[in-house]
């Protein structure tokens, strides 16, 4: 194994595999690092181990990952699974843990494809055992054929919520309810974007077909749900909400939440790259050019949901764009040869991103579910409430780093992943400022916790 590959790709989802495959076929020495055993990222999780029955249940979008994984396996790129990357430097040094030891690679280009994660859903009771994300439920289904034993309660909004429900229906799992926060105002907001969305008809059609199946199955939908709160003492027991002018209480020990996904930006923040606040997607995005080059950081590129939510197809195309950029930088492909490929990929990308404004508008997560009431926990790790953070703002804290130092919010093992967005928006709301002026946590390596012994062992590299 080379300790100095040309290109290191981080993340084995659609973007990562596409980037590694193309770069390798272009003559670069490529190493792809991923936390999981096998490739696939989250959307194609455990794809290489999926039996036929699971492929049927999960549907064609999941099964599509199989061919991508095979191309990747045949590409000559080196796949290093069970690798936990804890640092990427501006000079292209990648430090990662593998089998309990810290290893180091030095690459000429690093392509970050760490994808997305679920947006936090800070409502009362969200930290109780029995409350999980829809993505978590999907992972259990994909990787372990594990499903709820009782009729499932899903709450929130967004395509993934409905996709999970559809997959459960196909797997024979009953759905107790979909508590949908989407309301009339969301449809009104989305309407202006509909013409463009119609141009992305396959996406729309897929979504509509999915919803049709759910309706035909008689899955109970509660629309325009507000005032969501989860009850329970040591574990979830019920979910309360208002819908159709009435208050409801559903008894359940398992609640699956989802209100969209957001880019995983730990690496790009740690590189001190500039980020912008996306007002449509309500999240931070690293500033990149059309090929994914990270602004101010020549040796690092970003592809996939990590540079902005776009879905699997867009991610794959961005992976190819980043690979083409890297191959050009390494003089493994001439600009003349690269240009047509880049142009073709760019227009393909535009097509796949056409649906986004519509989806972002329609499934915009509600303010109340992003900026919670005082007694709701914002930082799960350190158990800091929204009210405490508002108090810190009153004490003069103008940003997340100051509130962190006052209340430990963001200092736990998740390193701000589950509270960061909430804290930025909470402070912005309290200060009547814009999120981009409030900023984000200062993120530093280790990007994942590393033991003292492992950290000490880096000296041997």
């Amino acid at each position, binding site marked *: 194994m080379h300790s100095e590959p040309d290109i290191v790709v981080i993340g084995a989802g659609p973007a990562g595999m596409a980037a590694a495959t193309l770069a390798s076929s272009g003559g670069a020495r490529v190493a792809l690092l991923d936390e999981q055993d096998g490739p696939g990222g989250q959307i194609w999780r455990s794809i290489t181990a999926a039996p036929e029955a699971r492929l049927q249940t999960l549907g064609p979008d999941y099964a599509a990952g199989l061919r991508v994984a095979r191309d990747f396996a045949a590409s000559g790129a080196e796949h290093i699974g069970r690798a936990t990357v804890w*640092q990427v*430097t501006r000079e292209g*040094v990648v*430090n990662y843990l593998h089998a309990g030891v810290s290893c180091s690679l030095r690459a000429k280009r690093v392509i970050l494809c760490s994808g997305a994660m679920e947006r936090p859903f800070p409502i009362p009771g969200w930290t109780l055992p029995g409350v999980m994300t829809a993505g978590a439920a999907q992972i259990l289904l994909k990787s372990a054929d594990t499903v709820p034993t009782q009729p499932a309660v899903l709450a929130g909004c967004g395509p993934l919520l409905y996709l999970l429900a559809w997959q459960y229906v196909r797997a024979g799992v009953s759905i107790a309810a979909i508590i949908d926060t989407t309301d009339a105002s969301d449809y009104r907001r989305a309407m202006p974007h509909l013409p463009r969305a119609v141009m992305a008809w396959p996406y729309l059609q897929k979504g509509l077909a999915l919803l049709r199946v759910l309706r035909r199955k008689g899955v109970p939908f509660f629309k325009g749900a507000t005032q969501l709160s989860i009850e329970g003492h040591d574990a979830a027991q019920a979910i309360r909400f208002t819908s159709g002018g009435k208050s409801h209480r559903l008894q359940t020990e398992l609640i699956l939440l989802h209100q969209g996904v957001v880019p995983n930006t730990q690496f790009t923040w740690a590189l*001190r790259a500039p980020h912008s606040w996306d007002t449509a997607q309500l999240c931070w995005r690293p500033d990149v050019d059309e090929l994914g080059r990270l602004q101010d950081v020549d040796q690092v590129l970003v592809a996939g949901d990590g540079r902005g939510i776009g879905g699997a197809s867009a991610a794959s195309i961005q992976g190819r764009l980043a690979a083409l950029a890297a191959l050009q930088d390494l003089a493994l492909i001439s600009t003349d040869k690269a240009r047509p490929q880049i142009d073709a990929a760019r227009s393909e990308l535009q097509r796949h991103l056409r649906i986004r404004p519509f989806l972002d508008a329609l499934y915009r997560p509600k303010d109340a579910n992003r900026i919670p009431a005082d007694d709701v926990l914002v930082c799960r790790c350190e158990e800091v409430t929204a009210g405490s953070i508002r108090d810190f703002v009153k*004490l*003069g*804290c*103008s*940003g*997340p*780093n*100051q509130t962190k*130092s*006052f*209340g*430990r919010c963001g*200092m*736990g*093992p998740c*390193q701000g992943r589950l509270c960061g967005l909430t804290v930025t928006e909470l402070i912005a709301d309290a200060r009547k400022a814009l999120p981009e002026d*409030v*900023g984000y946590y*200062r993120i*530093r*390596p*280790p990007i994942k*916790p*590393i*033991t*003292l*012994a492992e*950290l*000490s*062992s*880096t*000296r041997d590299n």
Partner: protein
Amino acid sequence: MAADNDVIVVGAGLVGSAVAYGLLRQGLRVAMLDEGDVAFRASRGNFGLVWVQGKGYGCSPYARWSLASARLWPAFAAALLEETGVNVELVQNGGFHFCLTEAEFFERRERLQWLQAEVGPEYGFEMLGQASLRSRLPGVGPGVTGASYTSMDGHVNPLKLFHALHKACLGRGAALHGNRRVNDIRYADGGFTVTTSRGALSAPRLVLAAGLGNKVLADKVGLYAPVEPNQGQVLVGERIAPFLRNPTIYVRQTDEGTIQIGDSMEDCGYNDTTRTEVLAKIAARAIVCFPQLANLNIVRCWAALRVMSPDGFPIYQESTTCPGAFVTTCHSGVTLAAAHAQRIAPWIAGLSRPEELDVFSGERFLDPHREFHNDH
């Protein structure tokens, strides 16, 4: 000069807040100016030691100044608790300075013997060989030669201290203006006008407690504060069951149960990015000190910039060309917080001037016949 404030404190970090708190206790009306969330902010990066032993080698007034502050700390912490309800978790049960080689052990003993001779028998210390050290701190690794111990040392939660100071200042009516970078200071008619990125303020007295920013600001009011950044890196481990109640120079367990591991001293400019080779060295040293920490998960690392004067000692001075302007800077903002509140602030308010302060004037660095080093 008519003004809403008696004094403007530039910098609301640990030094500025402690001074402001002391001034407020003297009954002055105080305005505090603070740069913002991502300024260098030395105050966020410190180890939390209230430390006396070893300081002031070659400058015994500094040793005495530190010792005096440590003695003032219990009353200081109690006052903050009473006023704000925030317990800063002061524990002064003695501290250990580990020596990892024979040479270090000898140097340490020499240093402390010198200090004891200068300060007096109250400066008590013990040199502990490996066996004695292990009997007091089980878990110490075989690679540790020994340690010096004094009962003068302790630790505190620096973030709670910061929180408490802010709460106390606001509780006493301080006007805190955040996100204001100071661009200019003018002295006229016996007072100071401070121009910031968002408006101007005036007061008859001014305190520069802006850390690294003091260097440029001091110039504007006839003061000399040639401070430079000195980088220190710290690893923070997860919470573990109680294993270490005394602070040590490289490892301490906080009141929350987390483990703080330090530290380093590097001159690398205005750079507060962590460097892996330094972190690895700190990690390796921590395992030598306490082998059982090998499996400790490190959750955060950070690098902060100490505000370092050429000789490493504080700068406290009132301007002669612009009387009423003061500079207060140091790199031990935690240990000296009590002194800043209870001895520096009264001086700034016009009361007694601590006699130790002669030694700490900024002009000492203008002496061409002296050489300075800050690696103490």
